[in-house]
Each structure stands twice: as C-alpha cells, then as structure tokens.
C-alpha cells in the first residue's frame, strides 16, 4: 500500500524535475541557435533542390531529414552533456538533492525533460519540412515515421550524454558522446570488416560479443530507406523500439548507480 503511494510520488517528483528541465531549455539561447541552424538547413535544401537535376521533392526530403537528424543530435549532445554536470558546476544541484528524493529520480527527471525538449524541437522541424514538401507536391506522412526513428536515436544519444555527464566533465563527455555517435553509425560494419581478420574461433566470438555492446545506430536509421522508397522489413520497427528501450534503460541504470554515491563537492 505505502509502496504504491511512493511510486506515484516518485512519478510526481520526476515530472517536476522534467518540467523544470524543459523550462530551463526553452529559456536558454543554445536551444534557439540550434533550432535556427536546422531551419537554415531546410531553406538550403529548398535552394539546392532548384539547382540540381532530379526529383526536387526527393532532395528536400533527403536533405531535410538529414539536417533535422543532424541538428537534433547536436542539440542532444551539447545540451545533454551539461544536464548533470552544469547543475553540479553551478551548485544548483545542492538544493534539489537535499529534498526527500532518491538521487536517481533527478537523473531520470533530467533525462525525460530533455527528451521532451528534443521532442518539441523535432516536431516543430518535421512540421516545417512537411509544409515545404507539401508546397513542392511531395507531401508524405513518412516524414513522421522517419521522425520517430530520429527520436529513438536521440533517446539513445541523450542517454549516452547524460551517462557521461554524471561522471565526467563536459569536454570529455562531448568527446565520448560524439565518439559513440560515430561508432554507432559504423559499428554495424565492424564485424564484416574486422572479424575475418581474426583467426581463432574464440577471439571471433569475443569480438562479436563486444560489438554488440557498442550502440548500433544504423538499426535506428530509416531516412535512407524512406528517401529511396526501399520497403521496410517487417519487424524492423519493433526491433528498433526494443533496442532503443534496452539501451536507454541500461545507460540510465548505470548513470544512476554511479551517481548514487557520488560526493557533490
């Protein structure tokens, strides 16, 4: 009975932290700067579509999605790495964590707040892209399907960023998160390239197991499939959702565990 009430209370606390995180972002400049860049890219996509031969709407769709994805990821990394660190640095964290709330809820709340920010941001950009496409007679709801995958990628990257943010300085976090992002987009090719180089069967097994620990963001990438109208395999979406969910869960749990006993000096 008391347990149940506490769970509700925890959710309330997480919501409070999230709301505050959301407020923080939408009242900060960096958010709008990155947003402006994304809009610029969309404009650029339109201009470019006039200059190139071929399907105009395809170029807008292709460049638009790539631009949106890129700038969302950048927002996620550069705001994400500060989520915990900045609170410690600015000493604003003292007051929050002196409240009757387990520390892990702070991390989870910050995470969901950031995801809400990214969601709003993404939705706004997707709407602009949709309108642009409609103008060029290329309206497609697939934009939102792609958006959903971009959002899953953001979920993983933000979790990576917040994980590093709770243990390392922003610069180190940024480097590590960027590295994870790049590895994430190439890791699916590692086994094909590297495994044949190994001779011993055991080594191969270990290598493959290690590859599975790396994020595989190609699993969350449908932009190409959509722009080239490649049919999307059955189960692709489900697999991506499960993958995202597990990856985020593991990272958040790890971040919470590390953060639990950390001295906030």
């Amino acid at each position, binding site marked *: 009975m008391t347990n149940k009430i506490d769970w509700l209370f925890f959710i309330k606390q997480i919501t409070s932290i999230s709301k*505050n995180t959301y407020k923080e972002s939408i009242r900060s400049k960096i958010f709008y700067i990155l947003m402006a860049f994304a809009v610029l890219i969309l404009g650029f996509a339109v201009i470019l579509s006039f200059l190139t031969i071929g399907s105009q709407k395809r170029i807008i769709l292709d460049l638009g999605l790539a631009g949106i994805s890129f700038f969302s990821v950048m927002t996620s990394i550069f705001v994400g790495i500060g989520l915990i660190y900045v609170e410690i640095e600015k000493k604003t964290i*003292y*007051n*929050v964590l*002196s409240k009757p709330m387990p520390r892990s809820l702070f991390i989870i709340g910050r995470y969901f707040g950031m995801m809400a920010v990214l969601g709003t941001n993404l939705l706004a950009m997707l709407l602009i892209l949709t309108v642009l496409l409609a103008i060029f007679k290329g309206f497609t709801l697939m934009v939102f399907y792609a958006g959903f995958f971009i959002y899953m990628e953001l979920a993983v990257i933000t979790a990576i960023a917040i994980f590093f943010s709770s243990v390392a300085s922003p610069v180190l976090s940024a480097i590590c998160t960027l590295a994870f992002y790049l590895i994430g987009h190439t890791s699916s090719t590692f086994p094909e390239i590297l495994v044949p180089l190994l001779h011993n069967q055991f080594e191969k097994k270990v290598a493959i197991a290690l590859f599975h620990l790396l994020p595989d963001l190609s699993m969350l990438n449908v932009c190409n499939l959509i722009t080239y109208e490649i049919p999307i395999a059955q189960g692709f979406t489900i697999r991506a959702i499960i993958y995202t969910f597990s990856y985020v869960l593991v990272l958040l749990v790890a971040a919470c565990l590390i953060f639990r006993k950390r001295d906030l000096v």
Partner: protein
Amino acid sequence: MKEAAISIRNLKKSFKGHLSIGRIEALRGVDLNVPSSGIYGFIGPNGAGKTTTLKIITGLIFPDEGEVKIFGKPNSEFTARSNIGFLPESPYFYDYLTGEELVFFFGSLFKIPKKELKERTVSLLELVGLKGKEKLPLRKYSKGMLQRVGLAQALISDPELLILDEPMSGLDPIGRREIRDLILKLKKEGKTIFFSSHILADAEMICDEVGIIVKGKIVERGKLETLLGKEVRFWDISFRGAQVPLELSQKTVVSHEDLTMIRVDSEEEVETALLLLQSNKSKILSVIPHKASLEEIFLSSVEEGKNDKQN
C-alpha cells in the same frame, strides 16, 4: 525527553588535497547533538568544516566514518530529509526561474497538494519580504533577495528542522537583522533552527545553544548561557570613599573625586577587596562580574585548536 533533531556521532571526512596531493582532513571526529527545539549555532572560523558537516547531514556528500541521524532516522534514507528545510551556503538557484516558480518547484518535490502549495508559495514569499518581486527572474535578485528566497524554499514543506549554512553572510547590517528576526520568528513558531556561522555577534544574539568547531573538531559546546556564564573573566567594583586602600590602589581602573572603580580577577580577590573597603568605611556601589563574550570563548578555542594541531 524528545528525540534529538540531529545527532552526529564521530563524523570523519577527508578530501583529496590540491592537485590530488595528500588528503585534507575536513572533519576529525565530530559529535553533535542538536535538540529538537530552539536555535542552535554551529560556529567556527572559515574552513573549520561547517559546510562539510551540513552537506553530510543533508546527504550531499558521504562521510568516511560516523553516522548522522535526523529525528532518529539515519540520514542515508532519503525520507529522513522530508522533515528538514535546507538553505545551502550562498545559495545558487536556477536563475531562469522567477522567485515564485522557484519556491513552487522545490515545493513540488514534497508531498504537498498543488492548491496548498500555491497558497504556501505566496504566503512564504510574503513572509520573507519578497512580495512584489515574485515575478522577477532570480538573475535580477540581489544577494539578500536570493538568501530570502532561499529561506522561503527551505520553509515550503513546513519542516520541523531548518538547516541554514551561513544564512547571514554577505548581507549588509540591515539584511542580517532581517534574517535574524526571521529566524527568531520561526523559533517562536516552534521550529528548530540549526545554522552555521563564522560571525559570532549573530550567534550570540539569537542562539540558545552553540557548538564551536575548529579544524574539524568540536572544541566547545553547550547552552549559550552556561558557556558564557562558565567563565567570569573579571569583576569591576565601584565604590565611594575618601581613600583607596593601599592594597587596592594597584587595581584602580578609574578614579574621579571620591568615586573609584577597581578591577579584580578572582572571587577571593573580590572578597578581600570588599572586606578592605568595609573596614575603610567606603560605600560599595556595585560589583559587576564580566563574563566572557562568545568571541573570547571562540578565540581561546581557536587558539586551543591551533595548539592541538601542532601536537
């Protein structure tokens, strides 16, 4: 007897030294008992370990050794913090929030119904004297206003115990007095206040009990009246008489016409002086014991602390 608001046993904490060389022993076995009523001053010079102690109490850092209980509950349980309000040292708050939003936000981390929380936010901001400023973002607040909004958020859950880290530091005399009056008012409302300070005057004026910490160790503790009453430093005896007895002339502080004041250092001396004066037919006007001020106790404790360190 009621349970202690805070009880601390043998608290030890060390930090990595500068450039990770050696270790700084910030707390070297602190014992403290804060009773569940009144105002307790946690006094000590800069760097004595006050903030470190308060951060351990509120669960922000973890001790190497020792234990802390808040109303009998180990502070490692986060629920132990549900009955405290905390004001960190020179509080840093989200400067993108308004005063009102800030107090509401911190309140929302407690089990307070929304409607009540809204009402409390308004009345607390009024209590701390920020009425009319509640819609202003904190980045436009002065140091004193931040301190006050900090007090308001510490009070939002109507806690029995308030823990304030240097609540008066960095304020001008008027600001200090306002905070002091506020603390006294809260005491009247039945709250326990545990505050740290390196400024004695503030403590002397409002504390019921003090603990003095020097170099990570409690060197003196107890009720302010007993601490101050413990050591009478000297007595001033004033009398009216034509002649000052020879034995006392050495001790004369002032003498004007037939009025004289002498100063003696012990009770025995008081007695002999009085006997001499009586036999001399002088008229005794007053015998005033001068007790140590908190400052003197403090300074002598700091001296002892230094000697202790050298040994």
